[in-house]
Each structure stands twice: as C-alpha cells, then as structure tokens.
C-alpha cells in the first residue's frame, strides 16, 4: 500500500489527486492537504470581478466530493517538510497546521510515500507597499474573495459615474516582476465593456500599466501569431485591441508603492512617476510560500527543496538570456534530491524567466516573471500522477511521462467582455509555451499555425464552454477524464 499526499487543491493538486484516485486501487491512500475548503475555477474570477458571475458558480466544497471519491482531505496548510523523517519516524512527513474545525491551530505530521507539492504561488502583495486588496482603492481578482471586493468597488464607482463623476481606472501589474499579465488583460477589457454597458464609458480614462517591455509580451517574450491569412506580433494584436477600446498604456514600469488613489512607479528609463486612479486592479508578484525543510537530524536543508519555489529537474545554472534554451525547463517535475517529491503547476521553481530580463537605469528589475497557466498546470499534474502510478504499480524508477513547457502547447482564451451576443474573446494558442529559438528561428521561437490569435464572439463562448467543462471535470462527474487538461 502506498500513501500519496497532495499539497494544494488548485488546478494542479486537484487534477493529480483525481487521476491518482481513478487509476490506483483502493488499497492506496490519497490525501489532499489544502487550507481552502473550496475548489475554485480561478480563470472565471474575471467575471466575478465585473459582477457577471457569482462566486458560488465558480466554486464548490471539496470535502463532500473527496469523501464520495475516497480521497482523504485535511483542511490545513503545509508548513515544514521533513523528507527523511526524524528521530521518531523513518517515514518522510510534512508538518501541517489545521486552519479550521476543532483542531484549528494544531499541527500534525502527515507522513507520505510520495508527495506532490501543488501549492501554487503565494500572492506576494507585501512586496509592493500599500498594495492591499480592497484598500487604497486597489483591488485584485486572484481569488474569488478578492474578485467580490473588486466588483463591489467597481460597481460603486459606476454608480458615482452615473451621477456625473469622471474616473481614472488603472489595471495591470503591481510589481516590477509580476506575472499573469493575461488575467489583467482580460480584466481591463471586461471592465471597459462593463462601463459601455452601463453607458458611462465616456466618463472614464482607462490605462494599462505593466512591467512588459512591449504590449502582448504576457511574460512569454511576446509571440508571432497566425492571424487571419497572415501573421502578426502579439504586441500589434494587443495594441490593435487597446486602440479599438480607447485604452491607454504605460509599459516598462514597476509599481513600487500604492497610496489612496496613487500608484508610484519606476520606469525602465529610471524615472519615478505617479499615476492617479479611482479604481485599480494590480496583479501582485508571485513568490514561493517560504517553506522550510529539515533533514533526519532536524538540521535545516531547505536549499535541497526550495529556491523560492520547489526545485525540480530544471537546469538552474545562471546564464545570460542569449544562452537560455528549452532544455533548461523541467520534464518530470521531480525533485533531484528526493525522488518521491514532485512539484507540478506553479509550485515548481522555473530555471529563469521567459521574457528578456531588463533592469531600469537604477538597477531595478522590470520584466515579467514566467507565467504557468491553467492548461500546463493540469498537464504537468497529470504526468506527475502517471509517473507515480508507474512507480507504484511497476516499481519503475524511470519516469516515462515527460512534459517540458518547451514541448507543450497551451491555449489562453482571454475574455474581452461578457455577453452571449455582445461578448468577445481574444483566443491565443502558443506552441511551444517556452519559445524554442533553435527550432523555430524565424517565427520568434514558436510554430506558426499552432501559435495563433483570433478575436471575436466565439472566444467568449469558448471561455464560457471551458468554464462549464472544467467545473464538470473538477467535480469528477461521469467520464470527467475524457475532458483533456
């Protein structure tokens, strides 16, 4: 009998737990440890943030589902890793602290044979002074609670605008090294459409602020896309959309401090500027959770497991941008020191960024961190589950399931406005996610055709269809596994 512990019940943790349960017999134990009692389909938070969806429709409680499916659930957060056990036990374990129920505040040693760390990112708001969701007129849409606050703030502003107020709206990244520009891009377009629906668009100046060097970088070094019968750069596509919607932009900027209605930022040119706003949604930087690890004797060995995020089979050698290659990116998400520990989704430490790193004239890094979106999070979680299954069933130490972000496609269906007939979406796919400049030297490292962009109502329907399909899948309803990650 094997015991597999999954930390985190986001996209990657939940996908891993579901596949493990489906493919392993009942004699094997699967336990999910997560502080949130609910599963949430994060991509739809965009619509919660403009009041077009209730948070209840993007989440469901995990405990009843896991009970039905014979998956153990501990509502707790992991704190410490003990991959060699300790004086009292040979079994490796994770120390977890209960966050709800009668045991709240108490900690427990959760032992494992295999560990999947799928804890995603820490939303590192503290890295930007004054960037606090719901305070200083700034909001976030990174969780459903944040998105609810954002909609409350926005709807109040819309009311004021209906009474004649003119407003300045600022949306983008809230730190020099934030990632997830795609989410902010979706939100700015949805807010713009919402203002039009409420007939107050003329009362608002909407500005995109971002650490990207060019529009459409998305933390992926930009893309050359097939578009219609030709090709187009993602920077051109985003510029086209922003111009169409009357959205202004500020690029190459690191927001460093937020005060009530003021965003102070540094530019790549080394200038310090301030933007005034009545409503802002700024994505924070993402970081690891600050976990610590200890060896059998209780001596800290965090450097074996973490460099911010979890260390996996990537090549972490420091090298200049010109020498980066797809081979640097991990294939199996296995920790090199402990072969029973894996980290899919956002939890793994990337070898480096994807976008070209840049610093301001004052030496401040201003360029996006690498995004890891939902599809690769699901795909990497599934391949980790499949490798563990092979290890258990066939005692196979060789990992046959591989999936590098340099050899994997992803789709990003960005909502550009909600509405069955007047909605819109920007559908973008990339292959590979991490550009392979050697293989595709003439098309910015990506395969044209498989890397394409399209704008239109179909994109909205697609995003909505994915919302329902992925929630169906997450609820593990009949034949859920036929829906791909």
């Amino acid at each position, binding site marked *: 009998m094997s015991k597999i512990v999954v930390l985190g019940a986001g996209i990657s943790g939940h996908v891993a737990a579901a596949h493990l349960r489906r493919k392993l017999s009942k004699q094997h134990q699967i336990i999910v440890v997560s502080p949130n009692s609910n599963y949430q389909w994060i991509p739809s938070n965009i619509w919660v943030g403009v009041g077009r969806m209730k948070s209840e429709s993007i989440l469901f409680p995990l405990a009843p589902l896991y009970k039905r499916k014979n998956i153990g659930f501990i509502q707790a957060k992991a704190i410490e890793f003990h991959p060699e056990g300790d004086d009292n036990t040979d079994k490796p374990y994770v120390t977890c602290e209960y966050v709800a129920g009668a045991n709240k505040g108490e900690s427990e040693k959760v032992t494992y044979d295999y560990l999947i760390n799928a804890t995603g990112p820490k939303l590192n708001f503290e890295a930007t002074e004054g960037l606090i969701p719901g305070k200083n007129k700034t909001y976030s849409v990174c969780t459903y609670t944040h998105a609810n606050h954002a909609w409350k703030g926005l709807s109040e502003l819309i009311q004021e605008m209906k009474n004649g107020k003119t407003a300045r709206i600022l949306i983008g990244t809230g730190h020099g090294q934030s990632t997830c520009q795609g989410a902010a891009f979706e939100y700015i377009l949805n807010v713009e459409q919402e203002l039009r629906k409420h007939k107050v668009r003329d009362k608002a100046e909407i500005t995109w602020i971002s650490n990207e060097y060019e529009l459409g970088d998305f933390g992926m070094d930009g893309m050359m896309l097939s578009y219609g019968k030709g090709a187009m750069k993602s920077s051109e*596509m985003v510029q086209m959309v922003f111009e169409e919607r009357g959205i202004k932009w500020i690029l190459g900027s690191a927001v460093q401090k937020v005060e009530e209605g003021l965003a102070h930022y540094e530019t790549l040119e080394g200038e310090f500027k301030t933007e005034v706003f009545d409503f802002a949604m700024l994505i924070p930087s993402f970081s690891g959770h600050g976990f610590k690890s200890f060896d059998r004797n209780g001596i800290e060995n965090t450097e074996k497991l973490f460099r911010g995020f979890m260390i996996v089979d990537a090549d972490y050698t420091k090298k200049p941008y010109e020498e980066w290659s797809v081979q640097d990116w991990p294939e199996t998400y296995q920790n090199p020191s402990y072969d029973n520990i894996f980290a899919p989704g956002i939890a793994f430490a990337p070898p480096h960024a994807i976008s070209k790193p840049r610093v301001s004239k004052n030496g401040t890094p201003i360029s996006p961190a690498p995004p890891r979106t939902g599809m690769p999070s699901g795909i990497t979680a599934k391949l980790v589950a499949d490798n563990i299954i092979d290890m258990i069933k066939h005692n196979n130490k060789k990992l046959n399931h591989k999936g*590098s972000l340099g050899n994997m*496609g992803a789709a990003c269906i960005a909502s550009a406005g909600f509405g069955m007939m007047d909605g819109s979406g920007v559908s973008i796919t990339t292959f590979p996610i991490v550009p392979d400049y050697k293989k595709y030297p003439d098309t910015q490292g990506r395969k044209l055709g*498989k890397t394409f962009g399209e704008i239109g109502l179909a*994109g909205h329907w697609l995003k909505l269809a994915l919302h329902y399909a992925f929630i169906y899948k997450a609820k593990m309803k009949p034949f859920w596994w036929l829906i791909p990650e």
Partner: protein
Amino acid sequence: MEAKITESQKRKMTNPVIQFFRFIYLSLKILFIVEGGHGGTRNRE
C-alpha cells in the same frame, strides 16, 4: 504597428452565424494543439 480592426472585420467578429462556425473550428483546433502531445526536450538533439 499600423494594424487596425476594420469595420468588415468587426462585423465578422460579432456575427453569430460566422462566430458559431469559428467556435467549432477553434474548439477543435485548441483540442488538437493541447492534446497534440507533449514531451521532453533533452533527448531529441
């Protein structure tokens, strides 16, 4: 950077009939790209 959304493109982007067929096409294309396989990168050179 002169790309602009023309009026005729805008009509296509909002026409439900055209968009219905785009929806089918995009769904299949995305399925093909995402399910088209993935793998390592290190042994292929």
